[in-house]
Each structure stands twice: as structure tokens, then as C-alpha cells.
């Protein structure tokens, strides 16, 4: 499902959602549209999460803390590559996968 429709040029990024966050999305995979600022600059991971939060308010703070860092037990894969850098670029062909690692009993 496309979370935000825009008449402007947008990059659509597919995001896989782990079960602890599906109370926000109601789905295990969503697509978010991120406005293209410049063709040579694909959106960042941080931009994807910001767009996700616009579509599903509150979801970003559960996975990113107030200092802009990924929470300890959250992992992000972009196109299958692990990253913790919210400035990493995401091209439209890449899928972002959010993983909530198991923690505690």
C-alpha cells in the first residue's frame, strides 16, 4: 500500500515491518513515497523512517531514540545490507527491512 501519494516526483520505498511494529501499520510490508529533491540524491534511511512516521504516527520513536540513533535492539537492512547509519542512501529498488532483535525473557 502506498502511504503518501504525491503529485511531485517521488521515490517509493518498500519497508518490511517486524511483528512488534505491526500494531502501527497493520501490515508486514508497506510502501512509502519520499519526494525526490534531486535525481542524483536518493532518499536516506532517515528520510524513509520520517516518511513512515508521517503515515504511521509514533512508529519512528519506537525504533529511533531522541538523539537520532537506532535503538539498541533494532536492526535495519537496506537491500540486504546491515546499516545503523540513518544517512545511508536508499534507492527505489532497495527494500528496507526493520528487524526487532530478540531481547530478554
Amino acid at each position: 500500500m502506498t502511504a503518501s501519494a504525491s503529485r511531485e516526483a517521488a521515490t517509493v520505498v518498500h519497508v518490511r515491518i517486524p511483528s512488534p511494529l505491526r500494531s502501527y501499520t497493520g501490515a508486514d510490508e508497506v510502501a512509502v513515497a519520499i519526494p525526490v529533491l534531486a535525481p542524483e540524491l536518493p532518499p536516506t534511511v532517515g528520510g524513509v523512517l520520517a516518511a513512515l512516521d508521517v503515515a504511521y504516527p509514533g512508529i519512528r520513536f519506537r525504533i529511533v531514540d531522541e538523539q537520532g540513533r537506532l535503538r539498541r535492539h533494532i536492526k535495519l537492512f537496506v537491500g540486504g545490507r546491515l546499516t545503523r547509519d540513518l544517512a545511508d542512501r536508499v534507492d527505489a529498488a532497495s527494500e528496507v527491512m526493520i528487524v526487532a532483535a530478540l531481547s530478554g525473557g
Partner: protein
Amino acid sequence: MPRTRAAAQSAPARRVRVLVATRKGLWTLTSDAARNGWKLAGPQFLGHIIHHAVCDPRDGKSLLVAARTGHLGPTIFRSTDSGRTWKEATRPPAFVEGSGRIVDHTFWLTPGHPAEPGVWYAGTSPQGLFRSADGGASWGGVQGFNANPQRKAWCGGDQDGTPDGPKMHSILIDPRDPAHMYIGMSSGGVFESGDAGANWQPLNKGVRADFIPAPSPEFGHDPHCVRYAESLPDRLYQQNHCGIYRLDRPSDTWQDIGAAMPKSVGHVGFPLVVHPRDPDSIWVLPMDGTSVWPRTSPAGRPAVYRSRDGGRTWKRQDRGLPRTQAWWTVRRQAMTADRREPMGLYFGTTSGEVWASRDEGRTFRCLARHLPLIQSLEVA
């Protein structure tokens, strides 16, 4: 501040509802009018760590729940219909971007003064104070505390403190003056503000802190639970890491009332309850704080201890409780009272049991077993 005795009346004989916040979700116990039959309902928020669930006494139907999970960041859920439906806060408690600090969880919730409907306060781990003016939907830091240049000296670093993280708790709003507040911090001590949190003064004279080299530090103490007497708001009590204390304002020196506890039981524990109409009647629930701090009931024989004279003398109350081999204990926000006559006393254990007395601790019965570890119990 004038010493006044507030009017306090017992509640009519209606059902009692108790919010049971656990490490795995929220349950509710509801009684009949006689407080004899009880029904357990839940869970809500299954799998969430609920540190505190509180009903707003100003309307009797608004609830706030401080929640997080093992994976996800902390948040607040709110209900305006007694828990039938819930909404998440749009802006949960969070430190200022650039401060370098991160809220691990919201630990404590306190409804604001009756003259300030919609105001709530939250205390976090690590120590932070937050305020909402819209019924818990959005929260901002009380910067008089959070950005105070002395805060780190008072509290230590965010990695210091108790095993589950240092905490702000026991946010007390003076029922006669919404700008007059007390807070308790583990670690940090008790602090007072007379201007709605803009400025803070330590209030720890007379309290031991035997884990600090200085003999009488001004701050850095470890109060576990601080309460005031509703019927005499200038009377404060605290169950501390190093004993039990009473403070009668305007004095600023706490009196040691734990020394009168039996030596075999000791004066360590977490929760403390004050009778809603009798400022001299208090209850504590001792735990084993010897050697490596087992944090169990002393000798596996749990009991509450009641004082009717402001802590000068104590009496053991354990009728109905297990006589032996019961090694649970009770967390600081997991013992509470109703407003009925006689007062009902309730506590929830680390082993997931809820115990209740409808005769002020003379006899106890178990209302629920097999729940997850109980973090807090509040009468709604």
C-alpha cells in the same frame, strides 16, 4: 507553607478497581461492593513492560499507561473511557535532541493538581521530569530539572544507579499548591520545588547514605518510595535504601523511624503506604537487604508492618499470608490503598500474585496468582 489538615473522607461502599501493571501487560481487578468477590480482566498490552498504570482521580475515567517492550522505545498510552479504548501519545517523554540523553522508560506517572485539569507529570529512567498539559497526549521536559546544571552532580551519570536503571519516582504535588512539588530519585535523593519545577533544592538532611563516602551528603541518596499524608500534606514519609523516615514540614530534617523495626526483619524495603485519613498510620513491606541484597521477603516469611503512631512503634501483619518458603517481594509502586472504611490494602508481588486486605492489614487473601512480575498496583 501553612500546616493544615486537609478534609479527607472515606469513599462510599462501591466496587473497587485495581490496575495491575506487570512486566508482560496490564490486568484489572474489580470487586463487588463488599470487596469480597473479585474479577480479573485482561491482559491489555500483552507483552509490553508496563511500569505504571494510573487513573486520574480528577475525572475517575482517564487512564495513563507507561509502556515499552524489550525491542521498542518507550511510550505512553491513554484512555478517556476507563480503559475500553486507547490512544498512543503523539509525543511521549523524550529528552531534548542534542542533550545526548535517552529515555529508557517512563517509570512513574502522577496526575496534576485538581486546579490544573489535563496536567500530568512523568518520571523517567534515567532521571528526567516531564509534564503534559493535554491529558498525556504530548509531553515536554521540565527543564528546570532536566537541564539543571546541577543535575549530574545530584544524580550521577545515566549509567549509574539501580540495576534496572536510575529512576525518578514519587512525584508529589502539594494538594494545596500546584507549584509546590517533591520528587524522589534512585539515585539522587528527595528534592523540593516551590515554583512548579523551575528550581529545586535537596531535602535529605537526616537521611543516611551509607554507600557514599561522605558521612552526611546533601544529595545522592536512594529513596525508594516517598509519600505524603493526604490528610496532612506537611507530613512526608519515605522508605529509603537506608531505612524508613518521617519529615514534618517546615522542618527539613528527616527523623529515622526505621530503627524501631525488629532487628531480625530490618528496615529495608521498597513500598510505603499512608492511610488516606490518618497521617499517623503507615504500612511498609520489608525485604531482605542484607549481604548481597537478595530482595526477597526476610527468611521467606512475608509480612507488612504497620505503625499507628507515625513510626514510633510497628506491628507485624501477616495473617493469611504464606507462613514459610515465600520468597517474593514487592516493588515500590506495587502497594496501595483504597479510600473505603475500613481502608483496603493491596500489594502485587514479583511472583505475580495480588494480595488484599479489606481490614487495614489485619487479614490478607490472595486475589490473583500466576500473573507476570507485578510492577505497580493502583486503585482506579
